[in-house]
């Protein structure tokens, strides 16, 4: 370090050199090291847990998907299990929540409408519609629904697909994931995995 420079300039030059060193260590070497290990040892997870149908990637078991009918505002497609409402329409480039407050009139109206719509769509009384079916998730990409919501949809899916309800019920039961390690988080059903299995069923 040239000593003829004023102390303030020298301090800032030291700071800059320090920052550059750390940028190389923590900003380049570190993520490259982790990516190398991840790609070598845990390829599937590192690439986003992709799921395939007929040899073609159709999404990720971690990211919820839209199961609506083709066309704009065409509504949910009855032959699929439906995911939770999403603030971003299951677009992974626009993740996020509704951010509506706990007494927001907009939210209250939306919940009322969703409850009535889900009950009519699935042919069940409104009292059977669980909370996760009428509330938007935090990410807008929640792949999971509660087991209650999955079972609530069984009759409708079976009817539309001309399958025995008991068989669809068994399929759901096989896809209920219990809490991690038995006590972490909540029981859940991954809608992407469940619908893929449903497609295989016919």
């Amino acid at each position, binding site marked *: *370090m040239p000593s003829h420079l004023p102390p303030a300039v020298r*301090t800032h030059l030291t*700071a*800059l*050199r320090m920052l550059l*060193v*750390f*940028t190389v*260590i*923590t*900003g380049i070497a570190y*993520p490259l*090291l*982790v*990516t190398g290990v*991840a790609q070598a040892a*845990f390829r599937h*997870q590192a*690439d*986003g847990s992709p799921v395939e149908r007929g040899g073609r990637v159709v*999404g*990720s078991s971690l*990211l919820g*998907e*839209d199961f609506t009918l083709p066309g704009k505002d065409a509504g949910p497609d009855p032959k*699929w299990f439906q995911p*939770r409402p999403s603030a971003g329409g299951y677009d*992974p*480039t626009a*993740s*996020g929540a*509704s*951010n*509506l*407050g*706990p*007494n927001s009139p907009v*939210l*209250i109206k939306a*919940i009322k409408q969703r*409850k009535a719509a889900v009950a009519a769509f699935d042919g069940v009384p409104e009292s059977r519609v*669980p*909370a*996760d079916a*009428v*509330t*938007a*998730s*935090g990410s807008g*990409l*929640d*792949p999971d629904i509660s087991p209650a919501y999955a079972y609530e949809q069984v009759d409708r899916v079976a009817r539309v697909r001309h399958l025995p309800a008991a068989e669809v019920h068994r399929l759901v039961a096989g896809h209920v994931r219990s*809490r*991690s390690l038995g*006590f*972490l*988080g*909540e029981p859940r059903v991954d809608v992407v995995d469940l*619908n*893929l299995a449903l497609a295989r069923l016919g």
Partner: protein
Amino acid sequence: MNDTLAGWLQVLALIAVLAASYRPLGDYLAHLLTTGKHLRAERFVYRLAGVDGDADQKWSVYLRGVLAFSAVSVVFLYGFLRLQHHLMLSLGFPGIGPGQSFNTAASFVTNTNWQSYSGESAMGHLVQMSGLAVQNFVSAAVGIAVVATLIRGFTRNRTDRVGNFWVDLTRVVWRLLLPLCVVFAIVFVASGMVENFHAVHTVTTIAGQHQGITGGPVASQEAVKELGTNGGGFYNANSAHPFENPNPFTNLVEIYLMLVIGFSLPRTFGAMVGDHRQGYAIVAVMGLIWAASVALITVNELHSVSSSAGHLAGGMMEGKEQRFGIWGSALFAASTTLTSTGAVNSFHDSFSPGGGGMTIFNMMLGEIAPGGTGSGLYGILILAVVAVFVAGLMVGRTPEYLGKKLGGREMKFASLYILTTPAIVLIGAGVAMSLPGERASMLNSGPHGFSEVLYAFTSAANNNGSAFAGIGVNTDWYNTALGLAMLFGRFLPMIFVLALAGSLAHQQPVPVTAGTLPTHRPQFVGLLTGVVLIVVGLTYFPALALGPLAEGLH
């Protein structure tokens, strides 16, 4: 297993692993902050940067190092963000505008990680990992460096030297953060987190629609985001995004990482001052406040207290993910706002008035239970100084803490520290509410809208970074005002801490007598907890009454 039992076990498991980490991690930190030996790799860093690793600095020189390093970091990051479209791995995103670049640079350098941008639609991979994530490491290390000087102020006598900033910085990054991050990043990937360099790739979904999926070096950034109490998400939805937090196990690990350094630093403090009981007293205060906050948020959310939407839906699941549920979301919310993390796995804007109000109150406490890396401990030690002073006034004795007299000079620095953050929060929120255009940024109306503005300034000035995210803050006014709030809220308190450290180190210790207030007993734990709550309560009560309290009573 029923919900309540599982919820309790989840909390108790977290406490158990934190308790198990307290001694080894705290002692290790004390060792690396006091040893005279340099590693070969560290010597190499000093040579590259032109630093004398054996020099001991005055507090004012140390401070100049902190400020110079942070100033250079802001300028460097600002340029990086402005020019990202000229660099590789930009994913085709344009450079970030000047207002947002300033805001983001200030945000990451101050360990706030307030995000007025949406990660997946604005930032390329290079700027995330080599710009933003670098600050995740070094800003966390700066916090620990500053608290190290305050502890040295208590342990050193009749000296004007408080340590070497460049050495403290390097050691914390090299010996603490980096090794832990490598281990936990790999644990994260193994558990399902993403780590690649893919750009957006579009897939045709099961139902025949199109979905654009963004990859990225997420797990490596996630580890340091939590461990360094940073909180800046790779994606807009932060830790609610399944790629950033794929399952309840990673959720618990993320909560553990954001708490572990903060809760272990009191051990470091006790070890360095040569009396572990002092560390236990401090960690007891932190633990009490944390546990109370977790309980209050969980109860409010479980019972949808004062929330019409929650009662109607049958549960407070708006803005929450099914895999975490209410228990896992409340635990995360309390921990992220009581540290300076600000990551979210659920959206606080949609919490019940009591639950959301608690997240604001947590930050108003100054983030001391356990707080940000380093900043939490220096925050609570300043409050301990105030508590000792209050006790001294009661009995008419000159107060002393750990053998150091707390005279006029020391109390001035402590008082300035206490006053700085509330002044920034209340003035900032007040000005925003008086301007019609800034008021219009609120998504919700009435008291809840005011809570959004109050939350924003509380979060910025306390360097938290979480938000009642309905508020639209990507405007020049908010980018600038909140950027300044973050900078003043970070560096003014640091100046007072370093000045206090210098002043304490200068003193000759006074012997302990029968009249000395013991600071390791339950009595002091109660006194300090009381001081924390009263100081904050009196300062912020009127503002809280206009926001969450008015809403809850509605």
